[in-house]
């Protein structure tokens, strides 16, 4: 790797810090944290997180309060997301899942921390890497796996597939296939919240690959002009498909790209840092207007299942991320070092979740395919008894 790439890789491998300070090597998260032993579910644990980088705003505090119950829930949810993505990988390789499949493993902390700071009244819209977003918004593993396999008991009745999962009752507006198209939509969701004066925020998520698109800056402008309660969350996993962030952007400091809009850079591999930052940002956004949150995160898989993920980055980089910054390992060490759970209990939880995911996969495999009339349902308000041509000229289907 040449000098700049090496420096960047080191910076990523260690942590996100204030831009001016030098990278700290071999940092183990457990060493920096001063914690109090907590033995029951609700007593508070104080955990120190890495300082935030900020732009036009004061930094949130770096001490986060958490409880054993919360940490356990973080662990379970992230582990469930991880196993689900692994199962999706295996199902794709066994050809049960076809088409596009963009996996989220490595980035779980972003969603889990965000959901801890939000409610289901806040709206979320995200990109095509949305399997875990659906899970975080109250969906089940079965819904996701069935949707991936195109079955009728999937999240969107088997009609949407990997990139189009919705849960409108929990204000999850998908899953969008076009890169960056969801950002102006998210600004619109924020407009709706402001219009209704319901005190909620809209979170619109995009990646470093989309961050240079024009409509995003238009959305910034309008959101800032009208003080919309929008959190623009840039999930910076450092590679837009195969292009490293510093190769595609003049300024890879995405939290500053809003210029007049304040921004915070958060360590996206630390669920507690995310929770803290998002809570702070939500408070700010409801009161003042839009804010950008850059999540410094990493994906272990390639961009999608067609991408091996090793042609533009080394395997060493991926494995060092797994060892040094893995979000699930971080929570696991917190739990173990503070004696909240022991190894056997954690193993039990893991086994149960593995079983849950496996049975969801089996159930999804056995699920029914959508009925034929779903091909034209919800397209016409009134079908007027039209006939639709089938696969060949002999077949005519009456629309119902």
């Amino acid at each position: 790797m040449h000098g700049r790439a090496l420096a960047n890789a080191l910076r990523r491998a260690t942590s996100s810090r204030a831009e001016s300070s030098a990278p700290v090597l071999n940092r183990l998260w457990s060493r920096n944290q001063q914690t109090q032993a907590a033995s029951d579910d609700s007593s508070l644990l104080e955990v120190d997180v890495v300082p935030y980088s900020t732009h036009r705003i004061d930094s949130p505090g770096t001490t986060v309060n958490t409880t054993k119950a919360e940490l356990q829930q973080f662990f379970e949810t992230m582990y469930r997301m991880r196993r689900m993505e692994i199962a999706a990988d295996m199902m794709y390789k066994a050809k049960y899942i076809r088409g596009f499949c963009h996996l989220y493993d490595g980035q779980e902390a972003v969603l889990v921390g965000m959901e801890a700071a939000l409610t289901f009244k806040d709206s979320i819209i995200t990109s095509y890497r949305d399997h875990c977003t659906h899970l975080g918004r109250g969906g089940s593993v079965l819904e996701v796996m069935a949707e991936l396999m195109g079955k009728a008991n999937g999240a969107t009745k088997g009609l949407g597939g990997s990139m189009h999962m919705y849960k409108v009752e929990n204000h999850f507006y998908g899953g969008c296939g076009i890169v960056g198209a969801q950002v102006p939509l998210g600004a619109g969701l924020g407009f709706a919240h402001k219009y209704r004066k319901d005190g909620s925020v809209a979170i619109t998520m995009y990646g470093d690959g989309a961050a240079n698109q024009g409509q995003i800056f238009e959305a910034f402008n309008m959101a800032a002009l009208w003080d919309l309660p929008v959190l623009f969350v840039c999930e910076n996993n450092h590679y837009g498909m195969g292009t490293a962030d510093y190769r595609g952007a003049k300024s890879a400091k995405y939290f500053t790209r809003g210029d007049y809009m304040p921004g915070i850079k958060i360590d996206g591999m630390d669920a507690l840092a995310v929770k803290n930052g998002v809570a702070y940002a939500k408070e700010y956004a409801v009161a003042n207007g839009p804010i950008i949150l850059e999540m410094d995160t990493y994906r272990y898989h390639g961009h999608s299942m067609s991408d091996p993920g090793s042609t533009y980055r080394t395997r060493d980089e991926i494995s060092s991320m797994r060892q040094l910054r893995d979000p699930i390992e971080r929570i696991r060490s917190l739990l173990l070092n503070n004696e909240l759970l022991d190894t056997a209990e954690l193993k039990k939880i893991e086994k149960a979740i593995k079983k849950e995911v496996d049975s969801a996969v089996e159930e999804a495999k056995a699920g029914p395919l959508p009925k034929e009339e779903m091909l034209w349902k919800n397209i016409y308000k009134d079908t007027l008894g039209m006939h639709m041509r089938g696969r060949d000229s002999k077949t005519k289907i009456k629309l119902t």
Partner: protein
Amino acid sequence: MPALSPTMSQGNLTSWKVKVGDEVAPGTVLAEIETDKATLEWENQDDGFIAKLLQEDGARDLAVGTPLAVLVEEEESVSAFADYRPSSSGGQESQREQQQQQDQAQPSTTGSEAKQEPAKPKVQANSRIGPAARLLLEHSGLSANDIDPTGPNSIITKSDVLKAIESGSKPSTSAKPQEAKQSQPQPQEKPQPSKAEPAAPSKSDDSSSRAKSDESSQQPQQKPAGKQQPYTDVPNSQIRKIIAQRLLDSKQKIPHLYVRADADIGKLTEMRSSLKEQGMKLSVNDFIVRAVALALKQVPNANAAWDDKAEQVRAGASVDVAIAVATDKGLITPIVKAADTKSLQQISKEVKELASRARANKLKPDEFQGGTFSISNLGMFGVDFFSAIINPPQACIMAVGGTRKRVIMQQGALAEKQFITVSLSADNRVWDGETSSAFLNAFCSNIQNPVKLLL
């Protein structure tokens, strides 16, 4: 076998990167898999230990879904799989194992389906049989009832009969077809030897069955003459494939001109032995290389190649002579560059070194690609004379035979001489008769007066 690309239906397992007992983590590369597009690395997603590898390195054409390995969670479980075979069910420890049982269920059901097929009711064959199929039927002694028809309207096709012959199906013992065979042995069998039937490896079988049916018209002979002799297929390595292709190209596309001469190597043998006494061991081949190099310099027209793209003669910049070396992988021709500037000793050393590196497969591409002239020497194998095939893009190859003692008339008396026969195969587009004879003359004069080689 994972589908590493959406269009993949089967893959080749190029090589394993883990072995039994290894601990694997997410991100560990398990194997290199050759897909329909490229060779990709197969990454592991689960923590665990490798308990058994179910396929070997180099296994080809494995369908997607074929079980490749067993992964277990606990290290202790590894030994339980030591004798595991995919068809039997071992201890179920990990989820991966369960998934593989799923995959195994699929191949086992297809296996049982295949076994059920012979129990299907036999389709009555159509009485229309084409002439080729009919001929084969009679020739092999089978009857129409023995064969599964696969043609339209249940017609027996020639390939059906061939398949039945190959599988060695025994003919039925009904009397009717035997009589039919008996009644037309002579007129049918005459045209048979002229046909190139793949199921007729032995014409002697025809004649023997003919003789037998002549002898005993009462008892029909049912000799299935179409039984295949056992054979083995030797798969072609990549190198051999390329050699085969190039030889074919050369023979088809290059107009070969063959010129032959005998050279008296008496003086050369003397010089060799005198040099040997002084401690310098040179082979006849070294002398030949030097003689060729000097001859190429003396006849500059000869040191040229045919430029296929420009369709014209391209003069060689320097005299690079290639030597044919036999390795166990195939024939390769390392080049002695600027052979005319090198002395006999240098040539000898270089040829030895190139040959040993060629056998060890350590030649660099520019060491065997290029050149204008090749020498192929089969003299040590007892060959007197042979013609070689040109090595494109070179223009000539010289085939050197072994030393022969001959008696000739010299000044009215018998004299014993030692001769070698050299045979040039030249590209007639580059070398015409004049060039080739000029070259041969120069070469022979060089070889017959080896003192010239020392200049």
